[in-house]
């Protein structure tokens, strides 16, 4: 009898709670560190649209409070405190300072409000969850697709790898990803060039590499943020040409930032894997809903990382939610 009673109570409770879940209203307070580039605008739009798209089937209505800190960690801390005082259900933040955000994380924990870091992890206190981009996957997928492409064209890839700043974990991940995909796919990396994320070094390093290894026929760039530097180097070597041209140097990049969109449309870039604002926003919402429901978002050790998407000149026109193409 006791057991039966327990079961009935449990059943009733879950019905009630389930019922509550079915009509749950949560407020997410989102603290931007700054909001002046198109990436942030894209993120915010995607967050809102995903909130609707994922919220309905999950029975969660998400209300938003956004604030912006103008690049000042102290201001951000004050903004987050504001959100806590307003009694939001979840705090999300893109940290201006990965160390300073710890204080806000602790403050939210003290107020029993879950904290989700977005895009920039905390180097101090651990948040409830972290959502970001998967840089290893970015490079690996791009590398694998690149290898396929070259094989299909009958080209033996001898690539120049332009590496990012080795103090940046993303750069390290991308190099790892690229090298593993390249070796699996039969591409030889003939030379590795450190760029310290400095466009000047992109240019001079690539120029030198092209001369040092004249047999090189492809380039992997850990990011195309300084695409014009890559272009300048290729032009200087007389090898800047789109796919199909005999002079074309096969080019794979990561990020597909606005500077790289047109070049890919025109065929100069063959393969890229995005720093995907859309997927990251999607993942952020998934995690937020899980947390709101008291469920485990099931994140990996370094967070819930959203993979990028592969883009080629053939798909760039039609792929959905490509922020760098759609937001100016």
């Amino acid at each position, binding site marked *: 009898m006791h057991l039966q009673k327990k079961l009935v109570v449990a059943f009733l409770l879950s019905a009630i709670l389930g019922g509550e879940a079915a009509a749950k209203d949560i407020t997410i307070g989102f603290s931007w560190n700054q909001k002046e580039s198109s990436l942030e605008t894209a993120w915010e739009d995607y967050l809102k649209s995903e909130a609707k798209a994922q919220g309905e089937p999950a029975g969660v209505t998400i209300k938003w409070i956004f604030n912006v800190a103008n690049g000042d960690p102290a201001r951000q801390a004050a903004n987050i405190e504001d959100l806590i005082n307003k009694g939001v259900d979840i705090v999300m933040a893109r940290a201006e300072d990965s160390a300073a955000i710890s204080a806000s994380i602790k403050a939210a924990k003290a107020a029993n409000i879950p904290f989700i870091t977005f895009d920039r992890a905390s180097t101090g206190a651990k948040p409830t969850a972290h959502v970001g981009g998967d840089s290893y996957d970015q490079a690996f997928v791009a590398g694998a697709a690149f290898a396929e492409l070259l094989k299909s064209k009958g080209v033996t890839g001898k690539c120049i790898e332009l*590496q990012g700043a080795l103090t940046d974990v993303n750069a390290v991940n991308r190099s790892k990803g690229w090298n593993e995909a390249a070796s699996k796919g039969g591409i030889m990396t003939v030379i590795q060039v450190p760029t310290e994320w400095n466009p000047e070094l992109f240019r001079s*390093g690539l120029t030198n590499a092209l001369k040092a290894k004249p047999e090189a026929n492809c380039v992997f760039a850990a990011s195309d943020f*300084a695409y014009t530097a890559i272009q*300048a180097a290729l032009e200087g070597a007389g090898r800047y040409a789109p796919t199909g041209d005999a002079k074309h140097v096969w080019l794979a990049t990561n990020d597909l930032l606005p500077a790289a969109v047109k070049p890919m449309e025109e065929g100069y870039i063959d393969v890229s894997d995005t720093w995907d604002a859309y997927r990251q926003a999607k993942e952020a919402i998934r995690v937020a809903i899980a947390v709101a429901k008291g469920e485990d978002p099931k994140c990996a050790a370094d967070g819930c990382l959203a993979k990028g998407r592969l883009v080629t000149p053939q798909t760039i026109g039609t792929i959905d939610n490509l922020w760098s193409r759609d937001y100016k």
Partner: protein
Amino acid sequence: MNPAKPPLIVSAVLSRYGFPIVLASVFVFFSVATRSFLTLANLDDMAHDMSPLIVISAAEALVVMSGKLDISVGSVAFLSASLASLAMRDYGVDPIAALLIALAAGGLLGAVNGAIVVALRVNALIATLGTMIMFRGVALELTDAGLVPLPEKVRLLGNLSIGPLFVDIVVAAVVLITLDVVHRRTRFGRQIMAVGNSEAVASDLGIPVRSVIFRNFVLCGALAALGGVLTTLQVGAVTAYLGSGLEFNAVAVVVVGGISLFGGRGNLLYSVALGALTFETIRTGLNYYGANPYSYRLVGGAVIFIAMYADALKRGRLGQNRNVLMRG
């Protein structure tokens, strides 16, 4: 009283011929160890690469010789180039006017540095540390920390050449030679040296010490802006990384080239050319060699160490020449 003496031959050679020997050996090494390092095309490219660094290092050299330091040059370059690029992009200003805007901005920023050092009597290192952060912050604000690409026709100027020589090599050479003449053969230049020797003595001699220092900073700012313009032209855009770490490079070039940080000593032309060539050789050489990216910093550091050692040996010998005044 002397520390343990190093092997006689090494120290004698180093202190007499100092650094040129080290540079020559490095150069020879790379020429032999790789194909294509020792080619006209590469030397041309190296000179092209070095141009912005030469311009900024020459300006820094003059400041160092007056006994001061300016570590805001990178930020000045960034901010000035940003203003010029934004003017072209958002206000359709034509390239010549934009160039003038950059130079004027640089001079103004230099004047700010000069005013803080001379009027507020703040130590130059501290003052320019502050302005380094401040100017960079302003530039990041203005450019949204994003890329400001140059209009296409301007971008093409980056690879412009007159015959075999890139235009910016010519610009850098003109700046270097002019500054050397100013240093050696104008009153201003001699007064800078006097101030570098001893501000007290210079002041006693009637030299307008504060005016000299102030004008020096203004000049440095304008030249830093010029360097920023050259870099932007090469890379094709203003990026958030422009000039970061540049101050370190400029000072390193000056010191490795043999100009004492104490001021009042040095040959501008020789030192800047030598110092810039040294760093360029190492970096390009390592590129060609395909060295492990982690080794770049190690090699760079080792080279600086050897240069400093040679400098210390040289000054150690000078110190023995000084007479000890008798006490009364």
